[in-house]
């Protein structure tokens, strides 16, 4: 991303708790398809590479943002970018004015006393170097990053822009959780703005100095309360002039330094330099000052601005596009490289069984001593004697016949039904093993039994978990409920489902 506005917009749209309408799958999917195709990838291939390919993530995120921007013009990114750019130009303008003013002030000359070069050197050389070093230290120590931009923006917005400003503050709060990811970007953005200001300051100072030198006659001196001898001042000046030592006219000689020492008391050059000589020496001094302004002011600021710009772009490029917000976005933009597709639930599911009327009472009529016929379904048929004993023991019924049904031989079912018809069975128990399902076969048999014995005869269905030694384990109520639900479809008011366990 070389575009701060885009990054701001993306973070704004992907912030925690944001309205996810823009994620709308179809639109996002269309963008994902287009970006994948533009890179010669299928959507699945793009999705498979997404974790490892930062450039692809960036392209997808920006593609999606472009699509969102078509529909929305209320995103804050461009405002933030424009605001920062505007702030940068305002700062540069202020820097320019301040530079012009400072140079004019330090070179102010009314002919009564020559211009003292020492304050000029201290301010334009020394102070600038110190400020630049401070700024570099501030940026390179990598602390205090997030909030560098947030704070001034929020401060200005919160105080001076009323409700709209408060919305900005709220937005900054909302993106706070992730701002640490962009600490470098904030630092270098601030650094670049500061260097632009510094560059403008130095350009202003240089322009003002050159115009003053060109359009007025200046006489320079050096003057200090400190006990500095000309040799030491010359040594310092020569050291400062090392970068442009190849330009002798801009390096003050020892003679020039000696000749330009000024004493305000009695108000003349210490060495008794004449006015003509002082004017001649001025050429050496202005060359020195202008060169110093360029080398210690303008050049470092231009270099710092260039570095700051590069580092800012690098910080922009370092955005990983990989936090949870982006993951959720890519999930919607690209189908998974592999995955399942299936029918909708409504296409495979059948109607739930009708509740039916259910039995006439909560329990069948008392069984003790009543003649009872028993149908034993499926695998329980092998243990029908044990089943009979259990029923007799638990219900006190008088067993008249036990018939295995649901076996391998279909004819066995028919024989049992006919036997019940012949006996005019008055009361029946149907027993199946726990786990047996009320299939169409089972329901069909029960229907046939009802037809055989006639309406009104109680039929009690039981599920039995019979273990070794005729031990009975409880059967889950949900299993009985499943049977009740299925048998309800028979609409038989004399058909019950009961527990078959010890004590029941």
């Amino acid at each position, binding site marked *: 991303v070389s575009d701060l506005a885009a990054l701001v917009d993306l973070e704004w749209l992907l912030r925690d708790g944001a309205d996810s309408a823009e994620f709308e799958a179809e639109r996002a999917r269309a963008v994902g398809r287009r970006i994948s195709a533009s890179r010669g990838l299928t959507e*699945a291939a793009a999705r498979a590479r997404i974790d490892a390919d930062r450039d692809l993530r960036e392209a997808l995120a920006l593609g999606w943002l472009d699509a969102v921007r078509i529909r929305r013009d209320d995103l804050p990114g461009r405002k933030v970018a424009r605001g920062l750019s505007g702030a940068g130009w305002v700062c540069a303008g202020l820097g320019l004015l301040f530079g012009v003013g400072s140079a004019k002030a330090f070179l102010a000359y009314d002919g009564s006393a020559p211009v003292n070069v020492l304050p000029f050197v201290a301010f334009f050389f020394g102070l600038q170097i110190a400020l630049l070093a401070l700024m570099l230290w501030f940026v390179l120590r990598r602390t205090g990053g997030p*909030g560098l931009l947030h704070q001034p923006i929020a401060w200005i917005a919160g105080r001076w822009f009323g409700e709209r400003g408060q919305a*900005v503050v709220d937005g900054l709060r909302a993106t706070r959780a992730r701002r640490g990811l962009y600490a470098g970007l904030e630092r270098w953005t601030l650094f670049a703005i500061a260097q632009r200001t510094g560059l403008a300051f130095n350009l202003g100072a240089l322009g003002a100095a050159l115009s003053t030198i060109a359009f007025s006659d200046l006489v320079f001196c050096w003057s200090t309360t400190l006990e500095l001898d000309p040799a030491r001042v010359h040594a310092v000046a020569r050291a400062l002039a090392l970068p442009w030592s190849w330009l002798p006219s801009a390096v003050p000689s020892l003679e020039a330094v000696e000749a330009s020492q000024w004493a305000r008391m009695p108000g003349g050059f210490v060495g008794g330099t004449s006015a003509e000589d002082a004017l001649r020496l001025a050429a050496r001094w202005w060359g020195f000052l202008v060169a110093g302004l360029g080398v210690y002011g303008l050049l470092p600021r231009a270099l710092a601005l260039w570095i700051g710009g590069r580092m800012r772009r690098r910080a922009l490029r370092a955005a990983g596009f990989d936090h949870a917000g982006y993951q959720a976005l890519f999930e919607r933009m690209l189908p998974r490289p*592999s995955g*399942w597709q299936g029918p909708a639930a409504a296409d495979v599911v059948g109607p739930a069984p009708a509740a039916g009327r259910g039995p006439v009472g909560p329990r069948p009529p008392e069984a003790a001593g009543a003649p009872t016929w028993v149908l034993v379904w499926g695998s329980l048929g092998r243990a029908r004697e044990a089943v009979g004993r259990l029923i007799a023991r638990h219900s006190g019924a008088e067993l008249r016949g036990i018939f295995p049904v649901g076996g391998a031989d279909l004819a066995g079912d028919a024989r049992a039904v006919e036997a019940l018809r012949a006996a005019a069975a008055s009361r029946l128990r149907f027993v199946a093993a726990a786990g047996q399902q009320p299939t169409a076969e089972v329901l069909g048999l029960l229907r046939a039994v009802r037809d055989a014995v006639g309406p009104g005869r109680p039929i009690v269905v039981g599920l039995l978990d019979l273990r070794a030694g005729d031990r009975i384990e409880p059967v889950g109520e949900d299993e009985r409920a499943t049977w009740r639900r299925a048998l309800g479809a028979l609409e038989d008011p004399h058909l019950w489902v009961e527990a078959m366990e010890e004590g029941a």
Partner: protein
Amino acid sequence: LSDTPLFVVVGNVNQGKSSVVAALSENGAIPIDSYPGTTRRSGTYVFRVGERELFRIVDTPGFQRPRQLLAWLRERAPSAADRPRTVRAFVDEHAGTDRFPDEVELLRPILDGAGILYVVDASSRLEPSNEAEMEILRWTGQPAMALINKVRDRDHAEEWRPTLRQFFHIVREFDAHGARFAERVALLRGFREIRPEWAAAIDEAVRAMEGEWAGRKRRAAGVLADLMIAALSHVERRPLPDGADEAAARAGLEEAFRDAQRRLEGRARDEIERIYGHPDLRRDDPALELLREDLFAETTWRALGLTRGQLLGYGAAWGAAAGALIDLAVGGLSIFAGTAIGAGLGAAAGWFGGQTLAQVWPSSSRLARALLPGETGRFVAMGPVTSARFSWVLLDRALVHCAAVRDRSHARRDALQTGTVGVVAGLPKAQRDAIDAALRGVLKGAARREVGAAERAALAAALEEVLGG
């Protein structure tokens, strides 16, 4: 007949066929109910890599009248060679009628060349109707595998196995409700044995699934890292209008801070569930409780986060490291006093340091102003989190939830239960050390308002390692 491998899942009603398909296809929307015949029409579930279909699984209605069907077939097949043709004749004759609708529906894909997955419920007894089903499937002449599923606690698997082996040359057990990714992949690999010519497609599908699974793990680790950064960096603010009671605002502030932590945890959970394909999961566990009442209760120490001993150990280690820097700075003149004092202070911090979740700041404090840029007027603020212990508790809950979601079968329809016993205390030391270092980086960053990309990456990498299982 398509070249795409096709498997059809058949069995008696309510044996868990749809559960098996739901688990394999990670489809939580497949209707699963206790009433027999929930599935009335076959549903085809396609596994694709890109645009290519690698294989299909068909979920079918269960057998409802297998004994009657077998009797019909036996009456019409004079020899073994006639059996597949007779099955086809059965389907042709009964298609569109209401006599055997379920059987027609389930036999049709088999006759189209599908491999058979015959599902039985080991909590039911082997019934004659089941034997009829197996016989019918044998008559189709298609390759088949038997799957022993278990819907309930009863176990009759021993009764089933000898019979199943008579009808199927591959018999496997598969717990549809408890199957994790490894078991699902193992079962899919087993599909190769049904028809060896389909092995290449199955292998490719398994590779794709494993790749997708690794991607999910990476994304989940990122979500957890984002949760930790957001929660530990969180600063809650309460305005103090003129005349407002500051004490009351402070009390409300703490509750709001806890609510914010819960919200963050909830959002991360939603995201994890979405990553693992459980977007509409119900959760039974309570919201994040920040141990307000009983921060140092022994039960709490045991349940979540690190043990007391581990916290003390880490505190001592980090303190010693800081002290050692002082020793180095003075060229060893301190005779390791810095290391010793640092270890002591660190241990004490580890023991007592978790007591305060986060600092409360008045609006006049510089930190509050810095943490809440642009705030005007009076307010009280709380955060960021300073308690290393809390960070471990929060992470532990997140990991427990993530593991529960990751390992949850899509066949389950109950609420997610994550339990209350943590995992971090039992992690291998190397993994725990990596997380501790990353968490300290986050806490340190949160305190100075900068949790950068490097800290996030370190935490995500450490968590990805933990989620590996």
